[in-house]
């Protein structure tokens, strides 16, 4: 203890303090805290959510997102071009087949623009859930070697797809200029829908990534599931085509409300407020359920992954 006192006395003098720092190369705890920083115990069966801990690991989240983006673009020759090409080509395909040949109604908006505006949230949603469902298994080398809140992994996988969404959005603006469709004040609602689709992707991402640790079928099943789901959502057709008596069932799919909401925000049409409320409630319930399930399963990730 006397040594510490003399060290602090020296520090106030100046140059000598520098020499003293070499003698003590590390920041050592001179006093141990009264309460343990970490208590390791078997977790309860329904552990509580620890948002504070996730917050303290925000820098790791940043690096994980940064890694996902960087690696994805480094390995592809065309890089960001793919992000643009994928929804554009799909849009082109649907425009030729459904717009020209079948002649599906598109609520008075040019069909290509209509489809592209639907592809925007859908592609983000599908790619975010798909990549996050594989994320825990894909990062098993981290999970078995270091501690950090496990939820960062599926969250990072989803967040990394936001860049794709931003790029695709820039293309949308170009398309809107080309088709001379103006944005209205409704665009202010777009962030709400983006937040909703993110939360929904997060709920499904947590659920599928956790289940995929134990049952690898989940990640195999998802792309197939999403193919069907796309046609159960108003991506290539307007939800006004759905017969009235089935509408209530149709709107239990939160993506229906979100995709129509995207179009309303972009093309300045009226919002479906009850639909928005229904989607929000369903998503929040799923999010709470998924995060509890994730918490409950995460203690065994390192043992079974």
């Amino acid at each position, binding site marked *: 203890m006397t040594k510490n006192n003399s060290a602090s006395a020296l520090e106030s003098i100046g140059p000598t303090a520098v020499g003293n720092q070499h003698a*003590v*190369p*590390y*920041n*050592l*705890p001179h006093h*141990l*805290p009264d309460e*343990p*920083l*970490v*208590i*390791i*115990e*078997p*977790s309860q069966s329904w552990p509580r959510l620890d948002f504070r801990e996730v917050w303290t690991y925000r*820098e*790791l989240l*940043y*690096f994980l997102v*940064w*890694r996902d983006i*960087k*690696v994805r673009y*480094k*390995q592809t020759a065309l890089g960001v071009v793919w992000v643009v090409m994928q929804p554009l080509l799909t849009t082109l395909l649907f425009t030729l087949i459904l717009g020209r040949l079948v002649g599906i109604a598109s609520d008075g908006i040019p069909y290509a623009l209509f489809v592209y505006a639907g592809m925007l949230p859908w592609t983000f949603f599908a790619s975010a859930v798909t990549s996050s469902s594989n994320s825990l*298994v894909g990062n098993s*080398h*981290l*999970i*078995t*070697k*270091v*501690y*950090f809140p496990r939820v960062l992994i599926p969250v990072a996988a989803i967040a990394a797809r936001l860049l794709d969404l931003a790029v695709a959005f820039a293309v949308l603006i170009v398309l809107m200029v080309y088709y001379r469709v103006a944005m209205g004040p409704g665009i202010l609602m777009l962030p709400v829908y983006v937040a909703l689709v993110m939360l929904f992707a997060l709920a499904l991402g947590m659920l599928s990534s956790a289940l995929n*640790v*134990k*049952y*690898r*079928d*989940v990640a195999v*099943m998802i792309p197939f599931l999403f193919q069907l789901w796309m046609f159960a959502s108003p991506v290539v057709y307007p939800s006004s085509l759905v017969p009235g008596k089935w509408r209530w069932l149709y709107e239990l799919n939160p993506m229906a409300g979100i995709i129509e909401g995207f179009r309303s925000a972009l093309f300045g049409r009226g919002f479906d407020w009850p639909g928005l409320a229904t989607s929000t409630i369903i998503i929040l319930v799923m999010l709470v359920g998924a995060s509890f399930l994730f918490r409950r399963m995460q*203690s*065994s990730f*390192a*043992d*079974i*992954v």
Partner: protein
Amino acid sequence: MKPIIRVEGLSKQYQVGARKAGDTSLSETITGALGAPLRVMRRRFKDPAAETVWALKDVDFEVHSGEVVGVIGRNGAGKSTLLKILSRITEPTTGRAELYGRVGSLLEVGTGFHPELTGRENVFLNGAVMGMRRGEIQRKFDEIVAFAEIDRFLDTPVKRYSSGMYMRLAFAVAAHLDPEILLVDEVLAVGDAAFQAKCLDKMGEVAKGGRTVIYISHNLGSLATLCQRAILLVEGRKCGEGPTVEIINQYISGGREVSGERIWLDPQSAPGNEKIRLHSVRIVSGGEVTAEVDIQNDVRVEIEFWNLRPGARIMTSIHLLDKMRVGVLSSANMHSANLAHDEWFNQPHPEGLYRTVCTIPGNFLNEGRYHINALVLTDVMNIEVFAEEAVTFTVHESGAMRKEFGGHWLGVVRPRLAWQSERLNDAVGPHSLEQAS
């Protein structure tokens, strides 16, 4: 004084033959998901001991701030499980641990390294994964790069690195972590000898810096150099705790895999023929029969045999083989090859039981496993007994030759040889050579 780590009754149970992820089929997924509540119920009623194993059982210990504690044990003794629990990678089944400081764990170097990213990018990624803040990494960046000696390749993807460069960079990041408690698992078992020495130095520096360290290694030598205190784990239980040298000795003498002795009681079926039969072969070291030998101690190979033909002229011989069954040496009790004197060599032996002892000096063999072939011959050339791999023993490093270098010593033997250096001249250049000669 209050400990910085307190572990109480820590236990971890694993399912035996736990289903590995990935071999669950789709139908099982569906029935599994539907039947999950039922299965939990069923498991409650089953005897859990029948299908589970305790990787760690009721382990208690305390570590005080600034201590460097080694954990010793065979593979599967629970060392890694203990470290994984303390690093919070996996949860204990029962028990509790309290940590009064920030924890950094080094269960592997280069965790999170991505082959596509450059050295520079990986330093940041790996640092963040290990729990460093971005500002901290930026501050230590130059130091890390200097330690790794890879500055020319900083912007090359690490997939193009040689394995040596990769390891150096990975260890450099790890070496610059400074949590209050550091958990280390055998990371030194990689890289070339020079780099291992550098790592060991760095570890020693960390240990002397007053950090609290829990260190796991199979390398008893490095444990002896780095740790003042050690804990011995046997099958998940703590079997000893105390000064490292004592615990290492307990480990060497306690956990016998092979007894170090082979005995044949029946002269009719023992190796040999109607002239000579083998009775026993044993290893005696440090005053006892053992298969675990301290590198410093002499190894006595004792061969006992029955002579059944009075008047036979007998010679005894051994082959020493390394773990790959490559011959290290052969020796016999003939006068010209004997440091001592054996009056029975090639003399007529009356009927009876004989013992011949060969002493292999201490500080001669390298660490590792050795096998002994025992041979008994008549008239110097006729092999009557040839007991292949009659005994096997393992030489352990206790730390005596580990003061400076902790890595693997090249070679089958590691004798202590005489070394000396002198300064020939104070000049440098061709003329200095002339003067010197």
